[in-house]
């Protein structure tokens, strides 16, 4: 066994995985309408390549990537494009975002595909390219386009692929089920990724609260000596990329640098599984596994869901939510998840869970009180920051002070607020400070722009004045020389 290094801080929230861990993956019945936001990934939104009224087949490209960091979108099912317009985004803001609205026809008619070559006969570039063309993004919630990560990592000389099956967020069990039920496919996807990276080994990291998944994955990778399954001690946030890299290698991603600087590249199991589907079956990323759970959900489940299905569809299939009990409706886990503005929002590529939590589960009963400087937040911060000092500065609106204390290193994991006995919502102060700093930067850019314009104007005036003066001087000189000439003539 490999020696693990561990990481600093962290907390032990109750896993609550038992609510859904024993429920096998079920397919959500196809909803009549799907809402596919154009922005489901980090980077620029995709550009639609279909028009309203157009019929599309399942898996057909409906929006292409735009710019270097972007990802294309494909039709999650066959049907007709009803409209391209704004729709509520899966985000607390509830702001409308552009989306493609698809009326499904229930036929599930796949796009015709050519026979696929063996992925190992392709060049690493081609594999990465196909991963990108399949619209695959990081499925653990980071949403970063996978192909971009793969090519950059190969150039950086990454030697180890880390397949992240830690799933440290409470409640969420989609990766657990995926590993238990589709282990062979994940191992195959891992081999394909290794080929794309030209890397010699892969480590599959799983928290030890998933012993079945660990066993099944170990059995599945027995044939491949390059792949090793590691059991991590369960502690949030063990599955965060930076902490995972530290646990496995003892190395730290330099502040402001890239994870690949350490020679390790982290991909979520869901991402690796999608790569398998794309390269073996030519299927782009059009569905994903979502855990529907929480104390306010009648029957927690793990569902395979076409992208664009509404949260309402998922909740209905799980027996609905007890509305009077439901204190929070979240997309993602309780530690980092986004509160949803309503249930009429679509599932996107990075949606790993839909949670309806009761007030008791969400820890909502307490109002916050003044900081007692107990240092718990400092102790649990995996990034070694001083959350209490940062929030104090934010409270006094000293945004630069917050920045100087390492705001950019904070990954909003929420450990500090989870442990704070004064119930101070620390990450919210940080989010607020981030917004203010971004605003300041924008203002600064604007004022430098204006200053530049002013300077240009000033320079133009000066130039004109100088030109005038020079012209006048020339005229004078010419007159003088003429006078001299006249004098000379006189001689």
């Amino acid at each position, binding site marked *: *066994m*490999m020696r693990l290094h561990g990481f*600093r801080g962290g907390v032990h*929230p109750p896993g609550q995985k038992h609510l859904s861990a024993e429920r096998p993956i079920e397919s959500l019945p196809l909803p009549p309408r799907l809402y596919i936001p154009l922005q489901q990934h980090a980077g620029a939104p995709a550009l639609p390549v279909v028009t309203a009224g157009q019929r599309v087949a399942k898996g057909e490209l409906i929006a292409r990537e735009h710019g270097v960091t972007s990802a294309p979108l494909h039709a999650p099912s066959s049907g007709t494009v009803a409209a391209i317009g704004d729709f509520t985004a899966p985000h607390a803001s509830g702001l409308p975002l552009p989306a493609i609205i698809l009326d499904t026809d229930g036929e599930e008619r796949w796009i015709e595909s050519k026979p696929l070559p063996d992925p190992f006969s392709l060049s690493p570039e081609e594999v990465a390219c196909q991963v990108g063309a399949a619209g695959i993004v990081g499925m653990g919630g980071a949403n970063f386009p996978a192909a971009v990560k793969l090519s950059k990592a190969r150039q950086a000389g990454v*030697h180890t692929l880390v397949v992240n099956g830690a799933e440290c967020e*409470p409640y969420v069990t989609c990766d657990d089920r995926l590993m238990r039920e589709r282990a062979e496919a994940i191992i195959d996807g891992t081999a394909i990724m290794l080929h794309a990276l030209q890397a010699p*080994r892969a480590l599959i990291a799983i928290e030890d609260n998933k012993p079945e998944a660990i066993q099944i994955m*170990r059995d599945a*990778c027995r044939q491949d*000596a390059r*792949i*090793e399954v590691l059991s991590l001690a369960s502690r949030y946030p063990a599955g965060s990329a930076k902490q995972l890299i*530290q646990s496995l*290698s*003892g*190395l*730290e*991603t330099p*502040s*402001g*640098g890239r994870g690949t600087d*350490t*020679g390790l590249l982290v991909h979520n199991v869901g991402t690796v599984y999608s790569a398998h589907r794309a390269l073996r079956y030519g299927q782009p990323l059009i569905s994903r596994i979502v855990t529907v759970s929480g104390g306010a959900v009648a029957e927690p489940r793990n569902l395979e869901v076409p992208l664009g299905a509404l949260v309402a569809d998922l909740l209905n299939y799980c027996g609905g939510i007890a509305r009077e009990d439901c204190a*929070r409706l*979240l997309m993602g886990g*309780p*530690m*980092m998840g986004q*509160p949803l503005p309503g249930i009429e929002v679509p599932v996107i590529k990075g949606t790993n869970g839909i949670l309806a939590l009761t007030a008791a589960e*969400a*820890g*909502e009963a*307490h*109002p916050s*009180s*003044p900081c*007692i*400087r*107990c*240092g718990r937040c*400092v102790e649990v*911060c995996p*990034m*070694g*920051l*001083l959350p*209490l000092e940062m929030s104090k500065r934010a*409270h006094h609106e000293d945004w630069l002070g917050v920045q100087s204390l390492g705001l950019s*290193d904070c990954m909003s994991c*929420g450990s500090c*607020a*989870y*442990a704070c*006995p*004064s*119930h101070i919502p620390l*990450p*919210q*102060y940080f*989010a607020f400070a981030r917004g203010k700093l971004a605003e300041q930067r924008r203002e600064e850019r604007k004022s430098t722009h204006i200053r530049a314009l002013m300077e240009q104007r000033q320079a133009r005036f000066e130039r004109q004045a100088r030109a005038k003066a020079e012209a006048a001087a020339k005229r004078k000189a010419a007159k003088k020389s003429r006078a001299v000439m006249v004098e000379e003539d006189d001689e």
Partner: protein
Amino acid sequence: MKVNPLAGAPHAHDGDSVSRLMGRVLLALLPATVYGAVLFGWPALNLLVITVLVCLGCEAGCLWLAGRSVRQGIMDGSALLTGVLLALSLPPWAPWWIGAIGGGFAIVAGKQVFGGTGQNIFNPAMLARVMLLVSFPVEMTTWLEPHPWLSGSAPSFLEGLQVTFGHFTFTDGMTGATILGHARTELVMNHPLSQALPGHYQPGFAAIGWTGGSLGETSAVLILLGGLWLLWQRAITWEIPAAMLSTVLVLASVFHWVNPERFADPVLHLLSGSLMLGAFFIATDPVTSPVARIGQVVFGIGCGALVYIIRTWGGYPEGVAFAAVLMNAAAPLIDHYFRPRAYGRTWRGQPRPVPERAKKRAAVSRDSGSGPA
């Protein structure tokens, strides 16, 4: 701030709260408190009640004046704890006004003028104790021999009230010096410790607390048990008590080894006075101690060294309150210089490049292992 605190992650909490934290500390103090009340009878209990009531009253009054929630402020338990801690450190038969003045000073001058819970620089109870020691040296150093409840020497309830409120004159034989005080007086008279201590100090009694001293500080064992329970409950961290006690232990051992007639032995230091209470319940006060573990070690060492220095060379036989207050003042500085190293950064806060050697080692580390289990 326009942040809506209900909007963001995390949507989970470990369930601990300030009032629970204070509650656990109070519970841990209960054995020593009960023991003190039994050992010194009704007057001690009266003093405890008065001190606590004054603290609660002042806290409520200040919160009301400041227009803050009185209920929330009182319910967090910090004023109650301040009252108990202060009472435990007072001479058990001190008159009522010592408790009243001390309690009022602790809450008003020690805490509320700074802005209330979490804002104070000094531990309020210790600040009040220092003030009382300086202002009322006679009352603050009239130490009583044990007068346990139900024994013949115990005062009745009425006599107890007389002690607390009336003019009670101590007769000879009722009072005596604490061990530390006695050793100090003898040393001043140039008596070696080998003659001074026998008859006055027995380690066993000192450990149990069958001796004269402050209301709740005599029983080192009960306080230690309470402190260990707090550690187990994770209500306090081990760094401060461990650093403080071991510093005293080391200093006392070294000096005692050099000159046993002049310097008391380390066990005497550990078992007497307020050291145990100070190490587990006072120096660990979250508000006035450093937040980072490494800073807490420094803080604990500082407290321990100051306690030993004041006890040995200072003007008072006991130095825990002074040491705590002095180190409280240094805590912000310690916090500034001793903070954790951030992930991916050097100790100086610069981005920390991945060392090439470590990177290579990480690349090959698998070869040394035995492969999949």
